[in-house]
């Protein structure tokens, strides 16, 4: 198969070098990725303004946060991938230490120990969102692919340790997503299909074991998903109101700032995890499809960058970052539409919130670094 044809869709290289293109090149930024990310951010800011009930101060906070995240992306894009690779084990170790610190001294925030106060409050699990796939890619960088069984076991340990630490906080949603980002690396590295099938087959008993480990509220979320009407004012309320919001939006939506579900406070967590429902109510199916197209473009561009990458580390990491981004989008939208249980996963770049946005943009900074520096690599 020849993928250079499809690749042309995502390729920004062949565009005529303009003033803007020149600047992007100098800043080591990828034009198509940057512009689609910025479009998502603008989309997000528009929706958020409505979701925070036209509270300008909150909206400004988000804008500042986006700016900080973009700066983080810009900075990270300047590092060469081999530099990032060399520092990967140290980053991973630091993340691990911080996670243990959180468990020992962590400040109680939102009912769970997730926050660490080091001047600014942040969640060490955010570091792990990048550190885990980086570590897995680092490990596989020099190895022969597809990985041998012993490699799989070792990477499994590298993934499982932070996953368990985060799950103990307890933050099962983040833990599963972080594990997922590591697993994606293994899958992209050529995890044998038969093992994947085996894992899939073992998911049923696995789910049973998981169920035993779940907190009561987590079990409730799963049960609620299966039958939201069983407790319409309790656990099922979010899903019911979210479905009403999206469904009542119809094809064109009720108009910006006009969603009664969102504006009249029926929809809970409308500026964070359920912002997709606000958008569905006010901008309709067309608005949601536009946003999903942008997300899809970002993921496609990321995968294109991965394919174009010249070394194993860059390739695996870029693929994992892109696909993990997709997993975020999928889990959030599937949750808001009532397809999967409510897990606290925000809609990337749109939901109101701090550290996760910096992590995301940092990830895209890595993608850009990989894209811009590939020709300078020795291969």
């Amino acid at each position, binding site marked *: 198969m020849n993928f250079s044809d499809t690749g042309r869709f995502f390729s920004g290289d062949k565009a005529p070098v303009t003033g803007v293109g020149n600047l992007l090149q100098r800043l080591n930024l990828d034009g198509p990725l940057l512009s689609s990310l910025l479009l998502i951010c603008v989309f997000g800011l528009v929706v958020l303004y409505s979701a925070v009930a036209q509270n300008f101060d909150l909206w400004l906070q988000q804008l500042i946060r986006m700016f900080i995240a973009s700066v983080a992306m810009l900075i990270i894009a300047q590092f060469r991938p081999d530099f990032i690779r060399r520092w990967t084990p140290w980053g991973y170790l630091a993340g691990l230490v911080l996670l243990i610190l959180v468990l020992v001294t962590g400040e109680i925030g939102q009912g769970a120990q997730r926050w660490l106060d080091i001047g600014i409050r942040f969640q060490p699990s955010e570091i792990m969102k990048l550190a885990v796939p980086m570590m897995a890619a680092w490990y596989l960088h020099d190895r*022969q692919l597809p990985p041998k069984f012993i490699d799989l076991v070792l990477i499994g340990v590298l993934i499982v340790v932070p996953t368990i630490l985060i799950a103990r906080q307890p933050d099962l949603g983040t833990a599963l997503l972080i594990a997922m980002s590591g697993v994606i690396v293994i899958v992209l590295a050529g995890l044998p299909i038969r093992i994947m099938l085996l894992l899939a087959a073992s998911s049923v008993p696995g789910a049973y074991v998981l169920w035993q480990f779940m907190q009561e509220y987590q079990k409730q979320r799963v049960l609620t998903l299966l039958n939201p009407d069983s407790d319409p004012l309790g656990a099922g309320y979010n899903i019911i109101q979210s479905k009403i919001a999206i*469904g009542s939006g119809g094809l064109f939506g009720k108009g910006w700032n006009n969603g009664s579900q969102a504006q*009249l406070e029926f929809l809970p967590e409308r500026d964070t995890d359920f912002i997709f429902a606000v958008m569905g109510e006010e901008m309709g199916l067309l608005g949601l499809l536009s946003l999903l197209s942008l997300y899809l473009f970002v993921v496609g561009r990321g995968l294109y960058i991965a394919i174009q990458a010249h070394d194993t580390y860059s390739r695996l990491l870029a693929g994992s970052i892109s696909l993990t981004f997709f997993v975020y989008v999928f889990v959030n939208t599937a949750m808001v539409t009532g397809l999967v249980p409510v897990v606290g996963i925000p809609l990337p770049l749109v939901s109101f919130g701090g550290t996760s946005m910096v992590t995301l943009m940092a990830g895209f900074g890595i993608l850009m670094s990989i894209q811009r520096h590939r020709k300078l690599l020795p291969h």
Partner: protein
Amino acid sequence: MGLIAPIKDLRSEKQLFVARVILSSVISIILLGIVIVRLVQLQILDHEQFAEQSQGNRIRIEAVPPTRGLIFDRNGRVLAENLPAYQLELIPEQIPDVDDTLSRLARIGLIKEEDITRFNALAQSGPRFKPVTLRFHLTDDEIARFAVQRPRFPGVDLQPRLVRHYPDGELIAHAIGYVGALSTTDLQRLDRAAYAGTSHTGKTGVEHFNEDLLHGDVGYQQVVTNALGRQVPIETRDAAANLPKRVSPAPGANLHLSLDLNVQRVAYEQMAGRKGAVVAIDPNNGEILALVSMPSFNPNAFATGMSPSDYSALQGNEDRPLFNRAVLGTYPPGSTIKPMLSLAALEVGATNLTRRSVCFGWYSLPGSTHRYRDWQPGGHGEVDLHDAIEQSCDVYFYEISRDIGIDTMHQYLTQFGLGSDTGLDMAGEADGLVPSREWKRQAFRERADQVWFPGETIIASIGQGYMLATPLQLANAVAALSIRGQRYRPHLVAAFEDSVNGRRTIIAPEPLSRVDIDKPFYWDNILNAMHGVLQSPTGTARAAGLDAPYDMAGKSGTAQVFTVAQDEEYNEEEIEERLRDHALFVSFAPLEEPEIAVAVIVENGSSGSRIAAPIARAVMDQYLGYSDVEL
């Protein structure tokens, strides 16, 4: 980072990677496809259903209370109306320190110090955005005082609303009754849906009895609310799309009472400073012309809300101003029953119009030394039935009582409506009591007490002993007497009208069974004797009636509160006021074709003819148009 760099097949590695990317992409696109299918299902296929649900979410139905019907007297004067008033409201969520605000309001005299804790508790319960009413009715002065200080009281505001107002207040309190704030017991009795927006309901009197007519039908309006039930303003863009519906409430019916405010006023003023009751009835149809119970109270205080301390002060008052003596007060009727007993005696042959007897001032049963005294210590000398009524000779009735017998007395007095409620259109009316052998058997548990003694018949003949009647029953009885035996169910509401289309419904008089005495000359004689009470030189109440420009008839009565021992004299001066006899007077006028019947009771008034009769006279003068008092 093994020691030996592994041999990497870069080409096959990349191919493997690309294959895996394709696999992941396919899975991703399938997953995204599932989400999109779900979105299409929610937003296109099930859109209608969800649109409806979101509409139902935000639209709340709010009740709009109807305007209460007005009450007029027989000449169209307003007795109960609805006035716009300002009430003081507090919205807890807009106030950082409710306690402080309340104490500052108390300091400028808008609420009472003792109510602070109560209002504070009220503000803590219920949703924080829901206003708490502190005062139902502010005076102009208080409104001004608050207006000046308003900036100091964020979250406290004046709200206009309609408040029930009784222009004549105390004058009509016991007849009209009053409205008060809905209580939980009211809500158990009333239809909750119909009273969804109503704050007050009729508690007593006409207001209570005619609640269904006066209240009207509740309306409703749809309001846009948020998830907490807080009303949000409808913005134009929203209103254009789907304007919330509104169904106007139907105001309650206006009541036209038979009550004559002028007659009522005269009765009230005559009773000023006294305790007792006046009831005036039109004998021809049972319409109540005046209904006064004294002391009275200000019904407006109930409509505007009073503090618990004010209420308990009113309830604890030993003169019992809240007690409606006209319908609930039961008194020994005394000599006022003599005309009715005379008719019974004539009918059963216990006496006749020519029989005479000599009164020495006391009477004893054969074989007994117990003396039943006449009110006049020296006696009345030789009297016939006419004289006995005119001069209220007790001994004459003592004598014939044995021949009438208690059961016959019971039979005829019952026919005049004594001993059971009259059926007035007002809830809560006392039955009174007309004793009989049967009654005594049932009323007492001990066998010895169940026997009817001859002496009890004797005192029953002058309306003492067990016998009890309400002022309303006496008025109704004398009304029946005046028109020779036809009794009507007394009523206050003469008509009601739909306040929208003005259609009037007249309440027809309701005749009750006639008194079973057929011979017209019996009636003639007894009524003439009653005329003599007021307008003959020997009548007991001649002082009240001799100069009347019309033929007035009546009968005085004095009801013992305090039993005088056999060897003592009743001496008015020496007895504490509360133990003095009650003064009673029943009357009607004119003698031919009567237009008004009046019963007056003055508690501890000592003498029916001297104290109660002039009051009846004044009431009649007013009604019959002989009053020189400008009202």
